[in-house]
C-alpha cells in the first residue's frame, strides 16, 4: 500500500500491493490549454479510483485509433477526479485533445509500478523533461502530504513546455528550470542542473521521467555518484495488462536473475534505473 519508508531501497513491486484495476468510463470535465500543443485534462471516473504515483491508465477515445494509449496519472484529486497531461504526438493524443468537455473516454487503470517515497534521511531530487513531469505532480502531492520537501528540475525546449511549474511550487518543492532556447531558467539541458541539485540535497534519491537521452544522462550521473534512482520508462504499449509484450525493456528482473525483456506496463513503468540495460536497444521508440 504505502510505499515503504524504512527500507534502504525500494521493495520489489508486487501486484498484491497495488490498487485494484478497473475499466471505467470517465467524463472530461475541464481542459486547461498549457501550451499550443499540450493540455491538462481533468476527468471524473464513474467509480472509485485509487492510484499510486507513477501508475498509468490505458485510455480509449472515439476516433483515437484502435489501440488504447498509455498516460501517466498526473494528479488524483480529493473528489476522485484525475488529470492527464497530454501532448499532441499522433492520432490518439489528437482525439483526446479534441474531445469536448462532457465527452467520455474509457480508462483502464491504475496500471504498472509506482515511485516509492524516499527513505526519511534522503532528499528526493526529481528530473523531468517535457510531458515527463506528469507522474510527479501526484508524487509531489504525496511528498507534501508526508511533510517532505524535494528538488524538482524541469526541462523543456521553451518556457511554455515547462508544464505545471507552479503546481510543484505549491507543493513546497524547490523548483529549478532549464530551457533549450534560454527563455526560462538555465539556458540548455535540464541535466546541467543536476550536479548542483545533488550537492544541495546532501543525500539524494533520484527520480526521472522524460526523453530517453535525458534519462540516460541522469542514470549515468546517478551511477557515478552512487545515488539511488527510479525512472519511469515510456514505451509504445498495446494492452497495458502484460499480455501483448509490445512494451518491453531489457532489464534485470526485480526478483533478481539475468537480464531479460521486461514489460514496461507490468514490471514498470517505474524501474530501478540501475537494472536497465540502457545500451541494449538504441532506438527504443
Amino acid at each position: 500500500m504505502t510505499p515503504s519508508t524504512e527500507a534502504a531501497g525500494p521493495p520489489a513491486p508486487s501486484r498484491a500491493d497495488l490498487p485494484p484495476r478497473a475499466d471505467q468510463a470517465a467524463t472530461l470535465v475541464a481542459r486547461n490549454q498549457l501550451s499550443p500543443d499540450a493540455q491538462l485534462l481533468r476527468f471524473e471516473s464513474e467509480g472509485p479510483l485509487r492510484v499510486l504515483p507513477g501508475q498509468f491508465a490505458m485510455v480509449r477515445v472515439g476516433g483515437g485509433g484502435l489501440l488504447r494509449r498509455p498516460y501517466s496519472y498526473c494528479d488524483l484529486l480529493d473528489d476522485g477526479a484525475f488529470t492527464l497531461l497530454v501532448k499532441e504526438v499522433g492520432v490518439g493524443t489528437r482525439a483526446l485533445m479534441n474531445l469536448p468537455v462532457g465527452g467520455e473516454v474509457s480508462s483502464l487503470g491504475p496500471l504498472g509500478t509506482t515511485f516509492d517515497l524516499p527513505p526519511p534521511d534522503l532528499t528526493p531530487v526529481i528530473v523531468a523533461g517535457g510531458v515527463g513531469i506528469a507522474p510527479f505532480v501526484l508524487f509531489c502531492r504525496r511528498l507534501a502530504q508526508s511533510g517532505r520537501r524535494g528538488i524538482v528540475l524541469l526541462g523543456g525546449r521553451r518556457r511554455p513546455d515547462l508544464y505545471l511549474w507552479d503546481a510543484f511550487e505549491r507543493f513546497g518543492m524547490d523548483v529549478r528550470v532549464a530551457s533549450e532556447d534560454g527563455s526560462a531558467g538555465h539556458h540548455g539541458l535540464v541535466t546541467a542542473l543536476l550536479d548542483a541539485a545533488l550537492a544541495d540535497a546532501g543525500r539524494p534519491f533520484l527520480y526521472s521521467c522524460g526523453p530517453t537521452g535525458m534519462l540516460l544522462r541522469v542514470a549515468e550521473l546517478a551511477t557515478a555518484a552512487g545515488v539511488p534512482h527510479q525512472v519511469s520508462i515510456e514505451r509504445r504499449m498495446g494492452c497495458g495488462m502484460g499480455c501483448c509484450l509490445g512494451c518491453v525493456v531489457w532489464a534485470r528482473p526485480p526478483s533478481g536473475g539475468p537480464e531479460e525483456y521486461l514489460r514496461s506496463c507490468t514490471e514498470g513503468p517505474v524501474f530501478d534505473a540501475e537494472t536497465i540495460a540502457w545500451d541494449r536497444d538504441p532506438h527504443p521508440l
Partner: protein
Amino acid sequence: MAEEKSATLDMGVEVAGLRLPTPLIAASGTFGYGDEYREVADYECIGAISVKGLYLEPREGCPPPRIWETPSGMLNAIGLQEVGIRRFLAEKLPAVRELGKIVIANICGSSLEEYGELAKILDQAEGVSAIEVNISCPNVAEGGIEFGCDPDMAARATEVVRRGTRLPVIPKLSPSASDMAAVARRVAEAGADAVSLINTIPAMAVDVETRRPRLANVVGGLSGPAVRPIAVRMVWEVARGSRLPVIGMGGIANAEDALEFLLVGAAAVQIGTMNFVDPGVWRRTFDGLAAYCRRHEVAALRDLTGTMRSGTAG
C-alpha cells in the same frame, strides 16, 4: 455455467472433443498465461483460454519496437517471448487453473522433435485440456510459419504431436498457405481433431520520415478487425473443404463478428487483438450472441454453425 440464461438457450459448443460452456476462446498471445485479465474481463463468458505459445526453453523474443498500429489493426513482431514449458507448468498453469477455465496449451517448435517433446510433456500435465499447434507464427526464424505453409510439413508436425499425446490436437493454420483447405485435409489425416485459423498475416509498415521500418523485425503479423473479412473467407473455405471442426478467429470485436465466423462454418471462435482494446469484449460478445439466438429462435448456439444461406443479403 456461463450465465443463468433461460433453460431453453444452450450456449455450449463441442469442438475437438472439448465441451466448452461458451463458444468464445481467448486467442494465444493475447491473453498471457490466462489470469492477467482477471480483474477486468468477465471470465464467465470465456469458454477456454489458449495460452501464450510455448517452446521447451524460454525465449527472449524480438527487440523492440515490436508493435505498430495500422488502420483498424495492429502489427506485431514479438518473436514468441515466453517462459518455456517447465516454468509454465510450475508457475503459470496453477494460477489459471484456479480460475476454473479450460486451458489449451499452444506449442511451437523449432524442429519436429521439439513439437513431439512438448506434446509428451503436456500429455503428463494436469490441467491442460488440448494442444494448439502453432505452425503459423510469422515472427520466428525457424519453425512457425514454415511448417504451416507446406501441407507436408504441417502434417508431419501434427503427426509428431499426435503420437506424443492423447489430448485433442488443434493445428493453428497460417493464412500464408496457398491452399488452407488442403493443409486442413492433410493435418486431419495426420490425426488433428480440429484446426484453428487464422494466425496473423505477414505485413509491414515504414516510417517515411526516417525511411526505417516500424518494427525492429521489419516484418510482423497483422491482426485485428482489419483482417476479419479475409479470415471469414478462409474459415469458410476450410470448413467447406475439409471435415475437421474449425475454430475461427480474426478481429472479432462483438457478437456480429463472431456470428460471421460461426455461420460460415466455425464451431467456436477465438478473441485476440480486441482483448487489448477492450476487455469488455467478452461480456459484450457473449450477451450479443445470446440475444441473437433468442431473436432468431435458436435453442442451441451450436446449431448456427455453417448455416449461412445461399443468395446475397440484398
